[in-house]
């Protein structure tokens, strides 16, 4: 037995184990919540046909109190203009993950992003 506490195999195993950890973090923490693929827009309780997030476009949705303008770009969607007072829908920013939900309640426009796996089960404000 050498004077060292660790054998050569021990060192190799230790290095392999330590190297395994960043990979574990990467694979278990990185892929949480798939990216969204489609967005479902609901206006005044009616659901519009789903729109793909991969095609960049600007949509104008006629809500109860006026037009809401939505921008689809970089696999995400955001409100860019809305006739409401609070403008919370605009401040909520970009929505890219499956399961994300955004709404302009005064204008009764809501959108839900869907994808293969959802990041959230439910939302509560």
């Amino acid at each position, binding site marked *: 037995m050498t004077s060292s*506490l*660790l*054998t050569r*195999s021990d060192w190799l*195993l*230790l290095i392999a*184990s330590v190297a395994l*950890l960043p990979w*574990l973090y990467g694979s*278990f923490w990185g892929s949480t919540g798939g990216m969204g693929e489609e967005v479902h827009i609901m206006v005044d309780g009616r659901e519009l046909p789903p729109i793909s997030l991969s095609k960049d476009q600007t949509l104008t949705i006629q809500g109860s109190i006026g037009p809401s303008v939505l921008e689809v770009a970089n696999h995400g969607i955001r409100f860019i203009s809305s006739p409401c007072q609070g403008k919370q829908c605009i401040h909520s920013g970009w929505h890219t993950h499956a399961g994300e939900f955004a709404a302009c309640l005064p204008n009764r426009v809501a959108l839900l992003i869907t994808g293969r796996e959802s990041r959230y089960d439910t939302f509560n404000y």
Partner: protein
Amino acid sequence: MDKTLVATVEDHRIALLAALAITIHIAESALPTPLPGIKPGLANIITIATLCLYGLRTAAWVLMLRVLAGSLLLGTFLSPTFALSFSGAVAALLVLSVARLTPGLGFGAVGYSLLAAMAHMAGQFTVAYWLFIPHPALLQLFPVLMTAAVLFGLVSGIIVATMLKHFR
């Protein structure tokens, strides 16, 4: 047919080592844990020392007796805690058997300890996930738990290696 049970030298040895492991196990259960599932697992020291000194068979006895008697003393026998502890022990034993019986691997105490700690964690995590909490959120804990396993496996391995040096 002879009906008397004769305790061999090995039986006494197993009993002594298992008693040591159980004592450590119970003392450790009194320590608060920062996160469910993370604990130093110092009883691993006895298992690995036994493996290095007396071989796989004795180590297997000591490990399984520790899990069984430890759970009886702590009142967790057949509870979910026991299921996790038991599955971790079985996984550790399987990995240790492979590491021990495959010729030419040349692991020392630290290597065995690391393998046992990681197998224990992975084994009980798998059971926890499939049996008790099959929610994807649990998976996020896995890297953290494995980090703890590598850390504590290394520490107890070094303790065993230091201890064995004094024996030889």
